[in-house]
């Protein structure tokens, strides 16, 4: 191709990078169905939260010291009291880390409700689940860094879980910690994971997640199969009202930005006036390996799986197996749901009940995950845990029944 003298910077770049084509593929001719609602905006909300986490994290990184002797004060004194606006970046980071899981759960449950994980959209679901797992690891590794009592004991308890793996368990725990207990070696390696390795992996998977959307396209409220090429032709021919699609930019994003704006009002309200929920008071006591806090519990977003672990209060091994299953079972949604038709739960009578029972169960697990596991609470937790596993055992059966005509 012959390079011509360009009239402006845009043309100059286009000749060298094909920016016009790139913008079409990624933005102006990336087609989104019209038949969607505000729940489809949560992907962009998540992207924004991730950006907020990265930016606030970079500023925290400039004063944070990954050393057991210095970490606590570098956060609670240097960043919080000395650094100008250090409190702001910490509160943004803490609140975003908590709220990002709320939005991830909404995003996931939207996918489940509308059946957006099947018929060609499996890779969207799997890459999304990989993001959930890596975000969980990122949340856990970051929680260790302030080196408070909850940081320390959460790390102790979670790394201990690996000890239950047959044969290699006890050695694996020491290997993960780099010491017989959670210590300086553990802090520095989790620091490396939190600020570089995991964010890098997350960015890679976000790329994969977006890419996986490009071929099967975004699902819609009715699960309608849209002929994107034909609809795009209509749109480009000027029949914008008749076309069932809109371009990602500027049309779809303009709606997204509205939802995002509403969300950010809520988010910054939390950052400025209600950040306390994201900062456990026990974590303002420096880590002490000789003193265990009376109740150790994870942040709210891990409570449901923590309760599945504790629910089997009579057997630590069964609890661990159930916990392991709870953490991977959602990966299998595309195969556990035996009905290939993409339909919202509202049009699937059995699945509709299944979905809302799942929601109630997850909320129940979350509430009981925070309560001390004594007396009747232990039994209630057990019932919720069994129900969680049972839901995934019956899902193939009820979805098969619906495929065979049970749903009309």
């Amino acid at each position, binding site marked *: 191709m012959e390079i011509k003298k360009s009239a402006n910077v845009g043309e100059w770049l286009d000749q060298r990078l094909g920016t016009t084509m790139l913008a079409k593929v990624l933005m102006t001719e990336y087609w989104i169905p019209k038949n969607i609602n505000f729940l489809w905006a949560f992907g962009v909300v998540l992207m924004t939260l991730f950006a907020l986490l990265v930016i606030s994290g970079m500023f925290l990184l400039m004063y944070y010291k990954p050393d057991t002797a210095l970490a606590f004060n570098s956060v609670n004194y240097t960043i919080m009291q000395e650094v100008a606006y250090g409190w702001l970046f910490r509160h943004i980071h803490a609140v975003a880390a908590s709220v990002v899981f709320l939005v991830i759960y909404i995003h996931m449950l939207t996918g489940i409700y509308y059946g957006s994980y099947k018929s060609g959209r499996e890779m969207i679901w799997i890459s999304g689940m990989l993001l959930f797992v890596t975000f969980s690891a990122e949340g856990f590794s970051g929680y260790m860094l302030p080196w408070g009592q909850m940081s320390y004991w959460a790390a102790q308890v979670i790394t201990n879980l690996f000890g239950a793996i047959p044969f290699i368990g006890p050695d694996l725990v020491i290997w993960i910690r780099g010491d017989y207990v959670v210590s300086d070696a553990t802090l520095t390696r989790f620091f490396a994971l939190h600020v570089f390795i995991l964010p890098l992996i997350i960015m890679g998977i976000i790329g994969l997640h977006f890419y996986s959307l490009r071929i099967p396209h975004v699902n819609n409220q009715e699960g309608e199969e849209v002929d994107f090429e034909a609809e795009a032709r209509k749109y480009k021919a000027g029949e914008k009202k008749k076309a069932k699609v809109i371009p990602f930019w500027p049309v779809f994003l303009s709606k997204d930005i509205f939802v995002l704006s509403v969300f950010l009002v809520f988010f910054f309200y939390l950052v400025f006036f209600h950040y306390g929920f994201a900062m456990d008071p026990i974590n303002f006591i420096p880590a002490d*390996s*000789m003193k265990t806090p009376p109740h150790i519990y994870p942040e709210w977003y891990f409570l449901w799986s923590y309760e599945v672990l504790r629910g089997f209060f009579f057997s630590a091994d069964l609890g661990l197996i159930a916990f392991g299953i709870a953490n991977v079972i959602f990966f299998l949604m595309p195969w556990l749901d035996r009905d290939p038709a993409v339909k919202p739960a509202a049009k699937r009578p059995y699945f509709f009940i299944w979905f809302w029972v799942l929601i109630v169960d997850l909320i129940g697990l979350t509430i009981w995950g925070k309560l001390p596991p004594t007396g009747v609470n232990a039994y209630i937790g057990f019932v919720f845990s069994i129900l969680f596993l049972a839901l995934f055992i019956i899902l193939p059966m009820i979805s098969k029944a619906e495929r065979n005509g049970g749903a009309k």
Partner: protein
Amino acid sequence: MAGCDCNRRGFIKGAGAALGVTAAAGAGLTAYAMKKTWDPLPSVVAAGKVIVDVSGMEEGQLSLVEYRGKPVFILKKTGDMPSNEKRDVVVEGNRYTVVIGICTHLGCIPAYLPGESMFKCACHGGEFDSSGVNTFGPPPKPMVIPEFKIEGGKIVLGEEGPEYKKLMAMA
């Protein structure tokens, strides 16, 4: 010419295989080195061994030792305290209770009550006798005996001696 092509192909295959093997070996060694970077450092391993001289202890005295980040209780038993063949550590004819001082219920550190010769956990009221065996409350099992070795009048925590193995075999 065919033979020449064949040799070229053979050469490329050979070179490809050599490259593949070398790269795989390099990747394997790198993974091994990466794994080893996370192993406990020599200084950490050395600090994981604690030597306690118990020869000077008084009967009924409790000493608290930090071992691998955990508290270890060493109690020199008096004649009044019942002996426990499955748990007592015998050093130069004297009986000692050597346990990791962590409640087996939820990991709190129990306190020793000398008047009653027992350990009581403040968190949920669990009680252990002078041998570290759970006698009341939620703890599901006795306090854990750490790996130890006896060297004269000293107890070495962090190494498995014959006395430790004998206790474990009886447990």
